[in-house]
Every structure is written in structure tokens, then in C-alpha cells.
């Protein structure tokens, strides 16, 4: 039979190992542009372990949220790189027709001249249509993107009549990461295109992972893990000495 103390401590070890997993994930993505670090949080499990003498005995449960703080804007001088200075998102649509949110502005040009990300998901304008920067065959290879998203020919300055859309969601914590820097909205919120002046061409938003603070978090997790497991071990010793004392 496991006691309440043991259950609570084992849950705590589970929490710590999941936190270590999140820190590892953050450190692995220290160079992924547009990446938002994952923040582990400890919550009280609402379902109580058991009622002993009508007391609620809670255990810990693991939660994770994205840390939406902005990453550094790194100049790359590449005309297809854009960074967002505001807290909004780009939208991209894959070949399967599903739209995702993304803050990764490392854009590419596909064969049809559409602006797309590395996975071939095309960037959308504010009306939700896919954004063609160049025509097929190569006319107008250079593109200028202004701070409000308007696309124009980089050589002549003539407007292309299209603009990169920037979108805002009310509750960003409902966005679920699906990898490749993309998010899906799990709560099906209303998505509104917002006027913006915060697009910076020739820049890329770096990952917002700060390796120093992640290393500090890792030390805390590691030491807590050692402490928790040593308490667990002592409880085991306490029980065995108690059993041997009673059955002697």
C-alpha cells in the first residue's frame, strides 16, 4: 500500500522529469527562429487523493504554457525574411487547406511565386487568400515589404496591390504548438486581421530561449529531484524499520 506521502512525492518526481523535458526542448530550440519557449507550471490537482479525516490532500499536476515574450530581432538582410515586432501572428495555409498561426518570418518563394515557409505552407493576406509575391516565370524577383505589410516591386517601387496579413487572437494560451513553428487554435476563436506597422523586412525573430535562465531552471529541477527522491527513500526506510520493530 502506498501512503499519501509516497503518492505525492512520486507525482512530484513525475512533474520534475516533465519539467526537465520542457527545458531540454527549449535548449534544443535555442536556434529555431520564431520559437516560443515552453514554461512548465505546477498546479494543484483538483481531484483529491483521498479524504483523511475530511481533509483535502492535494497532489501536484503538470501544465505547460508558451512564454510569448518577444525574441531578439536579428538582421539577415534577406528580402524574404520578416519579423513581427508586435504580439500578433502571421497565418499560413498548408496544401491540406488547414490554416496555422506562425511567428516565423523566414519566408521562401515556391515555384508559383507564392510566399511560403520551409514546409511549403503559404502566407495569407488579411482576407485569408494566399499571397503571391512574384508571377510565374520570374518577373519582379525582388520584393519590398513595408512596415504595414504592403508588397511592392523592390526595383521599381510599384505596389503589387497585396499585403501580408497580421492577425490577433484574444487568448493566445489556447494556441497549441504543432511543431515547425506553427500553432493551431484549439478554442476556435474569432481571428481578426489587425492593421499593423510592426513588420520589419530583412530581420528574423530569434528564439526567445535564454540559455542562462534555462540552465538555472535546470539546476533547480535537478536539485529538487534529488531532494524529493531522498525524502522518498527515507520514508521507505522509516516504514521498513517500523515493520521490523512491530513484527519482531
Amino acid at each position: 500500500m502506498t501512503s499519501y506521502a509516497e503518492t505525492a512525492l512520486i507525482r512530484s518526481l513525475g512533474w520534475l522529469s516533465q519539467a526537465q523535458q520542457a527545458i531540454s526542448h527549449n535548449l534544443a530550440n535555442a536556434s529555431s527562429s520564431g520559437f516560443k519557449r515552453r514554461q512548465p507550471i505546477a498546479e494543484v490537482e483538483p481531484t483529491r487523493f483521498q479524504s483523511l479525516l475530511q481533509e483535502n490532500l492535494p497532489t501536484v499536476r503538470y501544465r505547460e504554457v508558451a512564454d510569448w515574450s518577444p525574441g531578439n530581432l536579428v538582421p539577415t538582410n534577406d528580402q524574404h525574411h520578416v519579423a513581427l515586432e508586435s504580439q500578433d501572428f502571421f497565418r499560413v495555409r498548408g496544401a491540406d487547406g488547414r490554416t496555422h498561426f506562425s511567428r516565423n518570418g523566414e519566408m521562401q518563394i515556391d515555384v508559383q511565386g507564392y510566399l511560403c515557409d520551409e514546409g511549403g505552407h503559404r502566407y495569407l493576406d488579411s482576407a485569408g487568400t494566399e499571397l503571391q509575391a512574384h508571377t510565374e516565370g520570374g518577373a519582379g524577383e525582388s520584393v519590398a515589404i513595408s512596415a504595414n505589410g504592403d508588397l511592392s516591386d523592390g526595383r521599381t517601387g510599384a505596389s503589387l496591390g497585396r499585403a501580408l496579413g497580421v492577425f490577433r487572437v484574444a487568448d493566445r494560451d489556447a494556441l497549441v504548438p504543432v511543431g515547425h513553428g506553427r500553432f493551431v487554435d484549439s478554442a476556435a476563436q474569432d481571428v481578426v486581421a489587425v492593421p499593423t506597422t510592426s513588420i520589419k523586412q530583412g530581420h528574423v525573430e530569434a528564439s526567445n530561449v535564454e540559455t542562462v535562465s534555462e540552465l538555472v531552471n535546470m539546476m533547480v529541477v535537478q536539485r529538487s529531484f534529488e531532494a524529493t527522491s531522498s525524502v522518498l527513500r527515507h520514508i521507505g526506510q522509516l516504514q521498513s524499520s517500523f515493520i521490523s520493530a512491530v513484527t519482531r
Partner: protein
Amino acid sequence: MIKSLYTTATGMKAQQTMVDTIANNIANVNTAGFKRTQVSFEDLLYVTLKTPGLERDAGGTASPIGVQIGSGTQLSGTSKIYTPGVLEVTNRPLDIAIEGDGFFQVLLPDGATGYSRDGHLQRNSEGRLVTSGGEVIQPEINIPTDALEINIDAEGNVSGRTFGNPDTTVSFGQLSLVRFVNPSGLLSVGGNILRQTDASGPAATGAPGSNGIGTLKQGFIERSNVEIVNELVNLIVAQRAYEVNSRAIQASDQMLQTASSIIR
């Protein structure tokens, strides 16, 4: 924690790729027409343990956040950055730099067309214009053996006087250039040669100067667009990130050790 070991290993592998790419860029700092490669990374798939909004508390309110565990990073692509390199004066008549986005066409040994920005041209034994690697420039330009001088203007017209006819300038032909919708999608095959792919789109041919395809400059060579200082800074960043990831592996390992020491 076993999972976190693999997660950090993806991070170390990513940084290794970064160092490999930087090494290639630095090695090509003096290669004419070389364009630097940039690697980009993205986060890997998430394992969703609890979907946000699925769980409800006693009052019926949906939980605002769920649990998704990420599993590291992966290489999302390497792309060539087509910013212009510095034009260097050589005063050699067969050094031609392209000002703008364009590529020369060359005939590859397998009969296919390759593309290059390396304008350090030569004449082969038959008098044709070839690259340093010996691939013949397309369309073929034949320079007579008794040519006294070679002039190449911005539109690619190759002309000059010959010993047999020293008083008038005759045309030897015209160079053409190609461009692509997505030059980053071209495949590098070494020897400063690129090949067309489905991602780059088809080549659009044109005379130099037409449709913004770029003009030619005789007597210049386009240097590599690698900037050593930037590459070295990137190298430091990659090396530190590698170290930090290896620290995370050590920490996960020690936690596993602690866990196994619970039972004795």
C-alpha cells in the same frame, strides 16, 4: 527523462549542422560567385497529453491550457542567400560580373544545362568561352584565334577587332542570362555550378538588362558574399548552444542516476 536525453540530442545535432555549414561558408570566402548558405531550424512535433479546453473542473469551466510535450528541434532547410558579393576590379577582359539577379548557362558533361554566377571565363582550345571548370557557356561564343581584343558590353554583346580585319569591330555573339522565381531552390552540385529543380521553377532566359535580369560588367569579378565576422559570431553562438545542450544531457543523466538510487 529518457525522452529529454533524445530531445537534447536533437539540439546537439542541429548545432553540429550549423557548424558544418559555417565551416563551408568560411572555406569559400574567396570563391568567386559563391553565395553563403544559411540553415534554419524548427521545433519538432509535440505529444499532446491533454488538449486545452478538454478537461473541465467541478464548476464546468474548461481548463484554459493543456499539456503538450515538445520533442526537440530539426533542420527545416538550408537556403542560399542571394545577396550580391563585392565586385572586384581585375581588368582581365574575360572576367565578367553579373550586376543583378541572373545566372550564366553552361553545358554540363551529361548534356544538361547548369547555371553559374562565376564569371571568371576562359577560352578553350577551340576558341569557345568556357568556365574555369571547362563547361561551355551557352549560347556558344566563338572567339576567332586572331582576335586582337574582346569587348563585352552591359547587354552581353561580345565584339572586337581581328588581325585579319583590324579597322572594323565585328560581333562575336551575345551572352544571355537566366533567372528563376526561387533561386534558393537551385541545387548546388559543386564547381560553382547550380542545377534547376522543381523548387526553383523553370529558367527564364533573356538578354542582359531586359526585365531586370541583371547587366554584365567586364573586367570585374564577383567575390563571395560571405562575411567572415558574421560567420565567426554565428560559430560562437553555435558552439555555446552545443555546450548548453550537452549540459542538459548531463543533468538528465544525473536525474536518472538519482532516480535509480531510490531503490537500494
